[in-house]
């Protein structure tokens, strides 16, 4: 019985002194377990330690570096991390660890007696010495802050339990975020509690302290002539305060230089806007005004990697929402790597990156240019006509990873179509000091090589890992006498630097930042830095008159410049609201864009094999590599988890004679990397897409180390977006990629050609069996705008995308009538309370498939809310990922150019739930309000419920997945949700903890629960309001209204499980000319 436990409740009463104890425990936890049972030929961690013993400073890390290249080390890595590795001999590694031993002892004790006989150990209480006045233990508090991201800050509201941040969500009061968030922002929580974060200031491999660094740095800089030789290499700056501080530094040391560097940057847009308008501008798109949206390789629905993701996604989905009498927008996407944006589009054209530039130029020049590809030509003609028809009501969005030519074309198009000022406005850049980063970095490396750099201070960057390969950053780095690295992790760069300063997380420090629309948010700390740590503000302040001035003071000083009115009031309001009023950018008049010089525009393809570099949809540029939630998150479209791969089309795979899931070697300009091969439906031919951010070395931490391959090693400064002339050769052996869900490798390729209804239609084997079945089983239903106008009830009567009653034989997918049941009235969910005459609550959920963009925000939100464990690559590979919510992706039609459908799938809370009926111990039962509730502490783990669940949404703790050991992770857990132990089933609970909490509040106030009192975690995160939860008995509630719509349908309804979650069938608005 004690094996289930909410590890955090005991900590709730912890008072002062916890930080110290935690740091200590952490130090111990940081020591790797000494392994003794691995066969002799392999390295053990002990041996690694021995090899490194006695080496200090640079030598130490060099040694590790050499070591890291040996095959034995890679083998060791595979076994040591991820920690739950099960596949090969990995399972032997921690044979009887302390934890395992205790568990066995516990188990045998439990076996010895009856349930009640297992005694609990004494539990201590640590009360406060002085309890903070506003603290009510057990009641969370919410604070507004913002997550600074290179493309603009994401305003957030942080839920704190006893001053421990336990959930990051969008700030509902912010004009841009409106309470919405995304996967990466959600995951920054785990990033903060990452047990592998750097904890000390390190000088040449030895622990040092901040004071020493300050004095040494300040003294050294003072000695220079005006800062000559002092170089800062910073991540993209979005903080006005930091910019102001830099200005002060520059005033004091005019020769000091600051270079900003992000491996995934906005150079294309910068270059293009400079060329077109003579200055750097950012574009803001008003999608609510646009009827036709064209994305030129812009993944604006994919996540915050695209600037303004939140408002763009919200506006797009609002425009795409179907309602009788309301118009719908139409989305065209021309892209290379298939993205969720592409698959949400009515019309998607897959082109090589070089062809996209051609296409964009052709589009900008009118139809005069003809394209060689007939499909593209047809697409272009139709698109151009549609755009012209909708001048001023359309918008062209270029992607940040598209070439400058594409941006130039977009500027020209938006201008010529009369969109500027209507659907697109140009503003100052979010980055107060915009620059073209690759060029700047190149110059910096040149200076380093020339010996001009005396001090290289790196602020939150990891150039050793991210710098373009041809710059040979490591060589240049050697030539710098003193290097200082400020970073949250002792990463690839930090471990080689003279100084390493542990950086505070944004949840631990003061700062400010601008969002996409220019609005400034004050970033306030949620918790004392877990491991001390300093921010960029502190580093820059070191060089100023008052080196001890805190970041708080610095921010306040800058804030005085942008907070109008009474400062004290304004400051408090800014902190409370999470944003500063009146700081949004005003539109900038930029004039007609100048045409791009033909040389730059003529980015033509040589027809060779291209390779495109893309930020990872989950890990971005690698900064989230050690965040387990994001590593395990199945990537958008590919559903690849814990890996990256050489992504290509079926045809390319066939032509190049590669094996899917097999190993291959990519060679580009003499640089080679070994990759696994994965086919992506809809990927254009003759181009390979690789995701950046993988292949981190051991320094990344226990999660990120050794996952995937490092695509940065192929990337050059000249062609950071895509490169021509790649070669790929097949290697022996398979890689065993970790792909979840639908197009699980086994269910594709050769097997997918078996098509039941049309046995001859797919001899090529280019249909997805799963996608095909999803349509036949009426799991996915949609119609065109024309069809829905003719027949609003298409979801139950059939349409081009709704095969209800068409396929199969019976009424496929329709709910049987209630009186067809043997026991129609066994349970009634419409009871009235005798004393108040109120109708009872009946919880239900509705998910609008038209709005779901497959961005994964809901999944990460669910991770945080429900204490879902990360299981590791080997476990995910065999299908044991624990996400309660998944986004099912189905590919319909020819996999060369498929339609894709996203369907969030979690427990459906069936009224006649199959799972409940077969549980022999009654561990899953129905509540009077219609929840299918899972009682973890009653579960013995027969797993029968999962077998009988047609939605397969139940998750089982096959091993001990929850981490009961790592101290920092205990602080992160939601105290209202039990941490599940091994051997119990779990699943989506409709966030029952939130329901119960709302019920208690309402009961205390003697009122009914109001619509909107309960917001599930997934609903809260969803940037497009696709998910709605509430009381279906309250006919005025949002969810009841949604369910009353004709397009509402339950999945697999014919099984008569009567799910409480239903879906709203999609409506698309295709261009008849392209249909």
């Amino acid at each position, binding site marked *: 019985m004690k094996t289930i436990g909410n590890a955090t409740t005991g900590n709730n009463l912890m008072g002062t002194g916890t930080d110290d104890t935690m740091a200590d425990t952490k130090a111990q936890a940081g020591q790797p377990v000494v392994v003794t049972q691995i066969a002799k030929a392999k390295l053990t961690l002990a041996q690694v330690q021995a090899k490194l013993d006695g080496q200090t400073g640079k030598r130490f890390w060099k040694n590790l570096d050499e070591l890291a290249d040996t095959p034995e080390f890679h083998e060791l890595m595979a076994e040591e991390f991820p920690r739950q590795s099960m596949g090969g001999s990995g399972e032997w590694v921690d044979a009887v660890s302390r934890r395992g031993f205790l568990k066995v002892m516990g188990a045998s004790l439990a076996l010895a007696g009856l349930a009640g006989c297992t005694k609990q150990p004494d539990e201590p209480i640590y009360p406060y010495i002085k309890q903070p006045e506003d603290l009510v233990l057990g009641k969370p508090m919410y604070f507004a802050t913002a997550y600074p991201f290179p493309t603009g800050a994401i305003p957030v509201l942080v839920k704190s339990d006893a001053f421990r941040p336990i959930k990051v969500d969008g700030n509902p009061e912010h004009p841009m975020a409106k309470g919405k968030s995304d996967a990466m922002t959600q995951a920054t929580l785990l990033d903060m509690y990452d047990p592998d974060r750097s904890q000390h200031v390190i000088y040449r491999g030895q622990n040092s302290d901040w004071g020493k660094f300050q004095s040494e740095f300040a003294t050294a800089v003072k000695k220079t002539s005006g800062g000559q030789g002092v170089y800062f290499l910073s991540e993209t700056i979005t903080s006005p305060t930091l910019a102001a501080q830099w200005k002060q530094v520059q005033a004091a040391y005019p020769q000091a230089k600051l270079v900003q560097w992000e491996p995934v940057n906005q150079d294309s847009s910068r270059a293009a806007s400079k060329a077109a308008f003579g200055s750097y501008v950012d574009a803001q798109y008003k999608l609510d005004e646009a009827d036709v949206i064209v994305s030129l390789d812009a993944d604006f629905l994919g996540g915050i990697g695209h600037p303004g993701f939140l408002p763009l996604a919200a506006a797009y989905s609002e425009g795409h929402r179907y309602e009788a009498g309301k118009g719908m927008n139409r989305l065209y996407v021309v892209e290379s790597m298939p993205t969720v944006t592409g698959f949400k589009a009515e019309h998607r054209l897959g082109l090589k990156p070089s062809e996209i530039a051609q296409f964009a130029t052709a589009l900008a020049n009118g139809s005069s240019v003809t394209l060689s590809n007939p499909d593209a030509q047809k697409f272009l003609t139709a698109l151009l006509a549609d755009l012209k028809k909708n001048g001023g009501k359309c918008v062209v969005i270029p992607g940040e990873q598209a070439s400058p030519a594409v941006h130039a074309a977009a500027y020209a198009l938006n201008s010529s179509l009369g969109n500027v000022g209507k659907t697109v406005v140009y503003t100052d850049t979010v980055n107060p000091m915009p620059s073209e980063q690759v060029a700047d970095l190149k110059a910096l490396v040149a200076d380093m090589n020339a010996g001009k750099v005396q001090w290289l201070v790196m602020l939150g960057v990891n150039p050793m890992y991210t710098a373009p390969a041809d710059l040979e950053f490591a060589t240049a780095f050697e030539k710098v006498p003193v290097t200082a690295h400020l970073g949250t992790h002792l990463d690839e760069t930090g471990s080689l630097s003279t100084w390493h300063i542990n950086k505070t997380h944004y949840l631990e420090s003061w700062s400010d930042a601008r969002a996409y629309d220019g609005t400034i948010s004050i970033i306030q700390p949620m918790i004392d830095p877990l491991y001390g740590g300093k921010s960029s503000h502190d580093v820059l302040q070191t060089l100023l008159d008052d080196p001890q001035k805190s970041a708080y003071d610095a921010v306040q000083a800058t804030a005085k410049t942008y907070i109008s009115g009474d400062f004290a009031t304004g400051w408090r309001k800014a902190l409370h609201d999470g944003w500063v009023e009146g700081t949004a950018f005003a539109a900038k008049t930029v004039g007609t864009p100048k045409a791009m010089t033909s040389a730059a525009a003529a980015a033509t393809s040589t027809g060779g094999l291209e390779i495109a570099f893309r930020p990872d949809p989950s890990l971005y540029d690698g900064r989230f590599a050690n965040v387990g939630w994001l590593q395990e998150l199945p990537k958008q479209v590919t559903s690849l988890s814990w890996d990256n791969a050489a992504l290509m089309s079926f045809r390319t795979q066939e032509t190049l004679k590669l094996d899917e899931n097999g190993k291959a070697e990519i060679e580009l300009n003499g640089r080679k990397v070994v990759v696994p091969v994965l086919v992506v439906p809809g990927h254009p031919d003759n181009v390979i897409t690789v995701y950046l951010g993988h292949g981190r070395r051991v320094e990344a931490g226990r999660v990120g180390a050794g996952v995937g391959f490092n695509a940065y090693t192929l990337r050059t400064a000249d062609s950071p977006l895509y490169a021509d002339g790649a070669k790929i050769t097949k290697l022996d052996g398979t890689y065993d990629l970790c792909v979840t869900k639908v197009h699980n490798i*086994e*269910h594709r390729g050769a097997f997918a050609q078996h098509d039941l209804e049309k046995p001859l239609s797919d001899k090529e084997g280019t249909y997805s069996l*799963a996608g095909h079945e999803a349509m036949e089983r009426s799991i996915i239903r949609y119609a065109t705008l024309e069809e829905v106008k003719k027949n609003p009830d298409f979801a139950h009567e059939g349409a081009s995308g709704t095969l209800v009653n068409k396929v199969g034989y019976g009424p496929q997918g329709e709910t049987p009538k209630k009186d067809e049941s043997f026991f129609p009235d066994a349970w009634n969910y419409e009871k009235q309370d005798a004393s108040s005459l109120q109708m009872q609550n009946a919880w239900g959920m509705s998910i609008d498939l038209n709005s779901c963009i497959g961005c994964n925000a809901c999944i990460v939100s669910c991770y945080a809310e429900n204490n879902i464990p990360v299981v590791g690559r080997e476990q995910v590979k065999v299908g044991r990922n624990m996400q309660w919510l*998944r986004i099912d992706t189905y590919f319909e039609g020819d996999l060369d150019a498929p339609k894709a459908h996203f369907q969030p799938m979690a427990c459906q809370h069936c009224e006649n739930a199959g799972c409940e009926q077969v549980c022999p111990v009654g561990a899953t039962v129905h509540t009077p309000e219609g929840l299918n509730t899972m009682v973890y502490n009653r579960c013995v783990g027969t797993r029968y419920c999962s077998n*009988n669940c*047609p939605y*397969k949404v139940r998750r089982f703790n096959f091993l001990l997945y929850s981490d009961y050991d790592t101290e920092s992770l205990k602080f992160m857990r939601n105290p209202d949700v039990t941490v599940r132990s091994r051997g119990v089933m779990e699943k989506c609970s409709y966030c029952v903890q939130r329901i119960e909490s709302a019920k208690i509040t309402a009961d205390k106030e003697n009122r009914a629960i109001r619509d909107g009192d309960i917001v599930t975690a997934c609903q809260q995160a969803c940037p497009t309001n696709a998910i709605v939860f509430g009381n279906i008995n309250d006919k005025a509630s949002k969810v009841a209204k949604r369910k009353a719509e004709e397009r509402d349908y339950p999945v697999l309804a014919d099984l008569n499980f009567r799910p409480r979650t239903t879906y709203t069938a999609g409506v698309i608005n295709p261009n008849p000319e392209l249909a």
Partner: protein
Amino acid sequence: MATKVPLNDPMIDPRTGEYAVIAPGHNFKSVTQKIAGIVLTSNTPLGWFFGLMLGGAVATGVVIGCTWLFLKGVGIWGVTIPGAWGFAIINFVWWIGIGHAGTLISAILLLFKQTWRNSINRFAEAMTIFAVVCAGTFPLIHVGRPWLAYWLFPYPNTMNVWPQFRSPLAWDVFAVSTYATISIVFWYVGMIPDFGTLRDRATMPFAKYMYGLLSLGWRGSTRHWIRYESASLLLAGLSTPLVLSVHTVISFDFAVAALAGWHTTIFPPYFVAGAIYSGFAMVLTLAIPIRKFYHLEDMVTLRHLDNMAKVMLGTGGIVAYGYGMEVFMSWYSASHWEFFMMWNRMFGPMGWAYWILILTNIAIPLTSLWSRKLRVNVTYLFVLSLIVNTGMWFERFVIVVTSLYRDYLPSSWGTYRATKWDYMIYVGTMGLFTFLFFLFVRFLPMIPMSEIRMMLPQTKVKRGGSDAASVVEERV
């Protein structure tokens, strides 16, 4: 057919043309000596030790496997989502099925007065019990928290919670525990007179005491015999519906679920038939080497083997009908789920398992068992019994795995791959079974002496007319 059999074989009864159930020339004493001798001898054959050790060594697989299992969790197996059940349940059903022949032989054939069963029923029953032991291991260890498996039993507790009786797994608990209990009781009751014999024939004091205790003081009193016969008959009568219900309940584990491929009404009869089919195959697997090793050809004759082969032919036919009906219904039901399931079972990525099953369970046995020549060919029968056992294992594999790994929602399709731990524990239970069986043949009478005695011609009570008349008179 009879003409093809050499009629000069002394084992063939010239009147029926059938093989005799017991070789001619035996009397009460000789059968007793022969059977009791195996148990009471002080010269244990070396082969026995070898077999016992081999079984024990393989059985350590269970011990090691379960230790690791308890340490780590069921994740060491290949089970996953969607295939949350794997080898453990397959093996459970397989072993339980094997057990069924024992009960069938001892109960149903007793009710049908098939006296040929007498020679084989004891070790068939032993086989049942050991198979149930092996089977019973799996449901216990397959749960995620085996230390809480007792929650499946209704017992008063401080939580005020009880088992959930709508679940087939709760039914399993009742069915399997009843089956194990009744089988053991029936087996033991059957052995009481033989224990008496062993007590009286044992020379070693320890054996005398042990068998004496086990015999409960049996002395062959006629009144005891009548009650004993009555109880045996009752137990047989109870075991018959029991054995049918047990596999029916186990088939409910599948049939009650909503999964296509499981959710079918044909499962109960087809499972029971399959169980008997595999059970008889296992009896053959065991009987053939034992009769050879202990020279029991006199008492386990070709007649027995022939009859068992005939039963296999019959039950195999039912099983084949079940397979056919599954295919037919998947078409006739006009249900897309059923249709896809069947198609996937045959031609999906795991189609190979289905064709192995058809080959080993239907194609090979059902074509060859029509031939009497093959039915009395000991070597062929032995090989065939192994083939059928394999086939029946694959039947459960096909049912459990291929229905689960591609079910309703295509997004949740997955695959199933057993791990080394799966194999280790499975093979380990075979070792455990062997180990127990070797212990049994050494220490317990493997052929019921009292029942063999009844089959001898000397049993007949010959009476003069007057005596008989007086008896009748008095009875009135």
